[in-house]
Structures are given as structure tokens and as C-alpha cells.
């Protein structure tokens, strides 16, 4: 028997005012964080563009949006994002099922590997992807199939980048859904599809919506993939904002476009909030290990092999191309580029970075950013999952719940704002004591955490919301403090989600490039920044070293994700 949350809430008896205070208390840190490191810088840079002599110039909207070129960019942005999201869901949802329900050797490794594209610099991945679908690429040699500078290359690359988002967000919850509910429905006479549609699908709904939303946001604001694979004829809003800001310093146009992107992202988020609220329900969660089994029957084996095939062609081959190139030296295969990395770094130059140094920088930034993202995102998710306030009881609670919904959307906004806007915003707003961060070490992890927080929140919310409210109540009735309720009831159930969230946040900061390269910093290049520097130079040696560094980044990322997979609580680890 599954109770809708609203029914649970009705039986609760805490004083609403106290609930409000707790909620506001939890929201204080995330709010302060976002106000200081996101809203303030972005408002500053947008204001610089839209204000002229202290007067707001809203007339600029008409001029910019009336430009047919901009209108075309807008149309293409929406269109390709919708198509990419649909394609990604189509290809990745079966994958999410396979990872959630089937036990097979190498599953953990594979789960780590599919997340790797997510962290690699787009320049690197773009060129690897061209080796697959471009001219002279693998598909070209095999079947004469070329997809470069076509929309198909962009769409496929988006699937490649976002496959893990779906597998991890949806699969994470799916693996913890009790399969007996579906079995019970079948026993009651429902067909296989009927049982899935009426039992599993509604339970997965919020997670699927969350994943779709993330993929839409990423593809809507796509930058590198569109630039490299689409050629100069395709541009997204994000590319246009970058050009107007970084190339032309046309802040008015950039400000208008930033606000348009803002509005679009808010629209998507509102839509998402609607679907989630309708679908939300308390679920019975069980340890993932109990739900996974070896595939049974021809259909399940076919699904497993099909998924593995898709992963191999779409994800592993481009990655393998990178590894292959990193060993393909002038004198045949060998570790020449790796050893030359070491000697180049010890040589007399500040340009070449010792791979270990860059790795260490990346890890240090990543750990700091993950910690910040977990604290901020965790508190935010906790605030958002407190029992819903009764609407209409008083004007005040209605106002608070509106505030909470607004807060929910606010947390996602950093994903919809371009790195160049945030970077320039940092520069002009965080430049006076006590917040003079322009050259501070913390600037990089703070900027990376901005992108990490939405992942933490989105990964944790579906699971937190699915925790049966009656457990919390029972604990409260037995005299546990809210903190103890959270520790004893929520934490054990969300530990896995927390680890997945941490993995995402860490991976995002390992691979983060846009903000990191942009923020002037002490000379501590991360791996992606070092790769980009090498790629910006001619010569086989520089290129080979870039590939070697990318391979190192890839291995580190996969290892980090693998370790996080292993860190699951003991009683859940008997998967094999």
C-alpha cells in the first residue's frame, strides 16, 4: 500500500511555524551561498550590460530579439535540445534498466566508465568523436558513413555525454524499487506491460523527469559539442552568449541573451516542478543488491547484449580512440608521450605541467568543490523534502511554500547560465574586500561547486522524497529529535544517493573547464586546462601529450567513480 505524501502530511501534527523555522534554517546556507557566488555576480554583469548611465535599457530586448540571426539561434537551440533529450532517453533508459535490474560481471566498472565522457574536456572528446563519425573515421572506413558537421553528429555526441545522467539518476532509484510490487500487480492479473506502466513507471516518473530535465538543460546550453561537431553554421544560445561576451565584449547583447536563456531555463524548471508534483509518492525502497539478478530468458539476454553493444559503439569506442592515440608515437606504439610528459615537466619551462601536479591540482579542487556541493546541496535537498506545508492554513505558509518552490528552481539555475557570464560576473563583483576572491585558490572550487550543487540536489531529491513519511513520524513519536530522525531514518536510506551525488559532483569538478580556465588563478592548472594548453599548439609531441593527459584524466575519473561505488554500506555490497 502506497500512501501519497499529502495524505501522510495530513496526519502529522507538528506546529507549522516550527516547521517553517527549521526549513528556513536549512535553507540559510544554500541561500547565502547562491546569493554571494551566483546571484550577485550574475546580476552585476547583466546589470553592466543593461544599464546605461544608471538607467535600465529594456529597449535593447526588442533590438536583439528582432535580429533574425538571433531568432534562428533560439530556434535551433530549442530544437536540438529537445531532439537530443528524446534520443538520449530512448537510448539510455534501457541502459538504466539493465544497470538497475541485471547482475553481470564488470557491472561496476562499466557504470564508472559510462560516466567518463561527462568529465573529459569537450575539445578532446569532440576530436575522438570525429574519429568515429567524421571523415576517415571508423564508420567512414567501414560503411562510408560520415556525420560530421551535421546535426546527427551533435545529437549523437549529446547522447554520448549524457548517457550517464540517465543511467545514474533513473537507474539509481530503479535499482532500489521493490520488484515485488510489480510482481504483485501481475499476480492480480495485470499484463507485464500493464504492471510496469501502472506500478513502476509512476514510481520512476520523478527520476525520469529529473534526468530528462538535466539532459535538456545540458543540451540546451551545449557549447563545445556544438562548436566542434556542428561546425560554424550551427550555434546555440550559449555559443552566441560566449561570442558576444568573450569576443566582442558586447555586454548589452550578452545580457539580453543571458536573460532569455534564464527565462527558458525557468520555464523548463516550472514544467518539471509540475510533473514531479503530480507524480510524487512515497516508495518502498530496498537495497539495490536484492533487486538485481542474472538475466533470465531470451528477451532479457538480448536486452543486456543490446545495451552492451550500444555502450561499446557509442561510448567505449571514442574513448578507446583517445587511449590508442596516446600510445601511437612517432616510432610506433609505446609509452613515449607519457615519459615525455614527465621529462618535459622537469625541464626548464613553466608551461609544461607535470602530470602529477596537474592531477593533484585537479583532485584538490575536486575534493573542495565536492565538499562544498555536498554541504550546500545536502542542506537544500533536506529543506526541500521536509513535509509539505498545508496550503491555505494561513497566508504565511502559502507564501513559504511558494518560496520553497522558487528555491528549488534557483538551485538549478547555474546549469542554465554560461560559464563566461559567471566568470566575468565574478571578476567585477568579487573584487573588493572582504570578498576579494579574484586571485584566490577558492575561486575555482566555488565556481565548480555551483555546477555540482544541482547534481547533488537532483540525485538526492527523488530518493529523499520517496522515503516513507510514516517512518519519520514513528521516530518522532518515539521522541527522536528532527536531527536524530534525519540521521536514523533518512541518512541510511539516502547514503547511496549521497555517494552517487558526491561522485557526480566530483566528476563534474574534475572535468570542469569553462569556469576553471576562465577564472584567473594562481598557476595551478587542472588536467583539462593542461590538456587544452597542449592542444592549442602544433606538433605531434604536444598532441600526443594532450592525449596522454586525457587518458590519465579518464582513468582517474573512472577510478574515483569506482571507489565511490565500492564505498556503499556493507550490507549492500554482496552484489556478486
Amino acid at each position, binding site marked *: 500500500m502506497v500512501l501519497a505524501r499529502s495524505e501522510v502530511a495530513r496526519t502529522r501534527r507538528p506546529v507549522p511555524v*516550527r516547521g517553517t523555522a*527549521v526549513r528556513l*534554517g*536549512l535553507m*540559510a*546556507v544554500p541561500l*547565502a551561498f547562491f546569493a*554571494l557566488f551566483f546571484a550577485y555576480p550574475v546580476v552585476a554583469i547583466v546589470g553592466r550590460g543593461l544599464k546605461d548611465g544608471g538607467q535600465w535599457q529594456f529597449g535593447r530586448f526588442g533590438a536583439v530579439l528582432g535580429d533574425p540571426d538571433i531568432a534562428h539561434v533560439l530556434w535551433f537551440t530549442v530544437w536540438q535540445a529537445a531532439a537530443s533529450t528524446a534520443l538520449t532517453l530512448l537510448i539510455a533508459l534501457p541502459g538504466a534498466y539493465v544497470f538497475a535490474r541485471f547482475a553481470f560481471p564488470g557491472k561496476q566498472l562499466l557504470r564508472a566508465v559510462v560516466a567518463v565522457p561527462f568529465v573529459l574536456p569537450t575539445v578532446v572528446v*569532440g*576530436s575522438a568523436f570525429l574519429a568515429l563519425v567524421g*571523415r*576517415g573515421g571508423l564508420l567512414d572506413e567501414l560503411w562510408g558513413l560520415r556525420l560530421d558537421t551535421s546535426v546527427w553528429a551533435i545529437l549523437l555526441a549529446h547522447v554520448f555525454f549524457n548517457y550517464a545522467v540517465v543511467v545514474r539518476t533513473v537507474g539509481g532509484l530503479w535499482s532500489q524499487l521493490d520488484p515485488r510490487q510489480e510482481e504483485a500487480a501481475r499476480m492480480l492479473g495485470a499484463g507485464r506491460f500493464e504492471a510496469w506502466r501502472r506500478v513502476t513507471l509512476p514510481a520512476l516518473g520523478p527520476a525520469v523527469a529529473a534526468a530528462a530535465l538535466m539532459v535538456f538543460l545540458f543540451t540546451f546550453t551545449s557549447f563545445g559539442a556544438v*562548436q*566542434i561537431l556542428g*561546425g*560554424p553554421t550551427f550555434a546555440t544560445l550559449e555559443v552566441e552568449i560566449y561570442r558576444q*561576451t*568573450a*569576443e566582442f*565584449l*558586447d555586454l548589452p547583447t550578452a545580457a539580453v541573451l543571458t536573460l532569455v536563456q534564464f527565462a527558458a531555463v525557468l520555464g523548463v524548471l516550472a514544467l518539471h516542478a509540475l510533473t514531479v508534483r503530480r507524480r510524487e509518492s512515497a516508495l518502498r525502497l530496498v537495497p539495490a543488491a536484492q533487486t538485481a539478478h542474472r538475466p533470465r530468458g531470451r528477451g532479457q539476454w538480448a536486452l543486456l547484449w543490446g545495451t552492451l553493444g550500444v555502450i561499446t559503439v557509442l561510448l567505449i569506442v571514442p574513448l578507446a580512440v583517445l587511449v590508442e*592515440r596516446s600510445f601511437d608515437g*612517432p616510432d610506433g606504439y609505446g609509452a613515449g608521450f607519457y615519459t*615525455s610528459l614527465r621529462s618535459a615537466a622537469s625541464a*626548464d*619551462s*613553466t*608551461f609544461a605541467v607535470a602530470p602529477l601536479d596537474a592531477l593533484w591540482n585537479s583532485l584538490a579542487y575536486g575534493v573542495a568543490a565536492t565538499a562544498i556541493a555536498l554541504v550546500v546541496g545536502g*542542506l537544500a535537498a533536506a529543506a526541500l523534502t521536509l513535509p509539505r506545508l498545508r496550503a491555505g492554513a494561513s497566508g504565511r505558509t502559502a507564501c513559504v511554500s511558494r518560496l520553497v518552490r522558487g528555491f528549488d528552481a534557483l538551485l538549478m539555475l547555474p546549469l542554465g547560465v554560461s560559464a563566461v557570464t559567471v566568470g*566575468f560576473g565574478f*571578476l*567585477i563583483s568579487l*573584487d573588493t*574586500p*572582504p570578498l576579494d*576572491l*579574484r*586571485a*584566490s*585558490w*577558492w*575561486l575555482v572550487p566555488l565556481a565548480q561547486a555551483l555546477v555540482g550543487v544541482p547534481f547533488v540536489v537532483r540525485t538526492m531529491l527523488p530518493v529523499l522524497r520517496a522515503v516513507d513519511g510514516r517512518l519519520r513520524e514513528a521516530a518522532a513519536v518515539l521522541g527522536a*529529535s*528532527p*536531527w536524530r530522525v534525519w540521521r536514523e531514518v533518512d541518512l541510511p536510506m539516502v547514503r547511496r544517493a549521497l555517494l552517487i551525488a558526491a561522485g557526480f559532483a566530483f566528476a563534474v569538478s574534475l572535468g570542469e573547464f569553462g569556469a576553471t*580556465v*576562465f*577564472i*584567473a*588563478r594562481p*598557476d595551478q592548472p587542472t588536467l583539462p586546462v593542461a590538456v*587544452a594548453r597542449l*592542444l*592549442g*599548439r*602544433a*606538433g*605531434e609531441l*604536444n*598532441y600526443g601529450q594532450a592525449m596522454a593527459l586525457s587518458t590519465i584524466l579518464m582513468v582517474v575519473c573512472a577510478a574515483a567513480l569506482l571507489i565511490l561505488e565500492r564505498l556503499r554500506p556493507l550490507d549492500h555490497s554482496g552484489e556478486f
Partner: protein
Amino acid sequence: MSTISRITVTALAAVVGMSTLAACGGAGGGAADTKTVTLVSHDSFNISKSVQAAFEKESGYKIRILRGGDAGKAVNQAILSKGNPQGDVFFGIDNTLLSRGLHEGIFSPYRAKGLDKVPAALQLDKGEHRVTPLDYGDICVNYDRGYFARHRTAPPKSFADLLEPRYKGLLVTENPATSSPGLAFQLGTIATYGEHGWQGYWKKLKANGVEVVDGWEQAYNDRFSGSAAGKDKGDKPLVVSYASSPPAEVLGKKPAPKEAPTGVATGTCFRQIEFGGLLKGARNEKGGKALLDFLAGRRFQEDVPLRMFVNPARTDAKVPELFTKYGTTIGRPTTLPPETITKNREQWIKQWSSLVLK
């Protein structure tokens, strides 16, 4: 609830404390600290450790290097932080961006020592010395020697050659809106064919099958058949790149080949001059001046070629063998006055886009 608010307060205090701490770290280069001089530059800035150490020992200042993305972004950052700059000296504003920086007034005048060794042609701010020329490089069409030897064709030499039918479909260039070599190539055609003739030239170039990609990396690494990185997968034997790309192709090759695998079409070059300047509002002005003198001095100038693959501005700086043996000296590169570039840049790029991309 009291526990929760205590945790909240602690966490909040931690965040605030952390940012204050960071602020202190950031202010480390502040007014009180005159021992450090901060250099703001683009991502390609590079200096030998020993050369840097020599400056630090002689002057008593420690150098701190802040790199902020590509040249355009770095300049724009400096413009946005005008009056309250991130550092003391800026390195790497080139002639395509120079007049924007000068117009915004981000530099304080200072005449660096040793300027008399820099040719007059490079000194674009001679009267006021707000910026000092520090290096130059040329952007030219590079060709794949192997391809043209196999096809028994002579490689092109000039912009006009590129229109010939035998070079049809062979050239890949970069989008001027997103790539500085792409912009330089376009400026080269404007310098050659004039503000009224360049569009006609590009119409013919388009008809002759020029291909455009967004960034230098794709053009050079993925499409150019002459780059070793492409492993013979590239299908374009002509690419817009740097005059110093051929020496870079030789780098790390053992044994060293007789000539570079790629060459430069000497009549297609546009000269980029990079300047450095003292930032207005610098916290360590004295250190900044010392650093600028050093950057214009022989020791740094001789370090420049192998570190940044450009030529030193000083005529008395020795250029390494890699450059003299495999590089090409460009006798008469094209160029345009910085004011003309800044005035027309955006409009030219827009015109180019609607002409070539649509």
C-alpha cells in the same frame, strides 16, 4: 530544532569564515605586499623557470602569473577590471585588440628600458608608451609538403594563388568570430584587397571550396593532412595556422629531419604583434616597471621563441636553431592599423559570416 539551527549557524559560519580566509589569501598581493609582482596574461604565456628565477634573484620580486583563457578573454577581463586590476603587468594584448585596450584606458604610460632595440614597425604606441611591443608572429597558410610533392603541384604562395582551380577544395580556415587565427587571415585579405575588395575575394574563395571550422584545434589537428597529430587522416593540405607551426612539427622528432614536413605560403601572412603594459591602478607599480623592463630585456626575449613559438621583438635577441633551420622569415607580412581593426572588427565579422557561412 535547536540542534538544527546550531548546525546551520555553524555551517554558515564555516562558509563565511572560509570566504573571509580566502579573501585574506586573495588580498595577499595587496597594498602591503611589495615583494610580489603579478603578471596577468593569456593561457599561452610561458617562461623558462631559470629565466624567471633570474629576474626574481636580481630584482628581489617574486613573479606571480595569472592566466585567464585565450588572448581575447584575457584582454576583456583586464578591461572589465579597469582601475582595480587583477595584477600589475599585462602581457599579450595584440594589434587586433590593442586599440580597444588603449581606448578603455587600462594602461599607465611607462617607457621600458631597451625599447631602442625594437624596430619602429613594431612600436604602435610610440608617442605615449602605454604599451611595449614584446614579440611578434605571423599567421599564414601552411601547406603539407608531402601532398604537393605527391601531386607534383607547387604549393600556393599568395592570397591570389588560393583562388586558382588547382587549389580547389584544399583549404581549411577558422571562423573569425571564434578564432584569432581565423580573424587574422580575414584581416590579411582585407589588408590586401581593401575595405571594398575583400568581400569579392571571399566570394571567389568560397566558390573555390574553402572550408570553415570553428577553432584552430579542429582545423590543424583534425583536418590538416600535414599535421603529425592527424596521423594522415586529415584531408586538407592547406590550413590557416602560424608561421612557427613548421618548427613545432619538428619538435621531439628523432633524428631531426632535413626540413619541416610543412611549409608556409609567405604571401598570405598577417602580422600579430604582442604588447605588454603596466596596468592602471597596479598595487605594485614599482615592481611592475621592473618586470616590464625585464620582459623587454634580452634574457626574456631570447627565451620567447621556444616557449611561446613567436619571434622576439628585440633585433639583438638570438633566435634558436629550431627557428632558423625550420622556420620561414616573412619578408612583407600584411597588417592593418589597430584603430581600423577595432572600429570595423564586429561589422567585418558579421559581413564575413553572412557571406561565407550562409
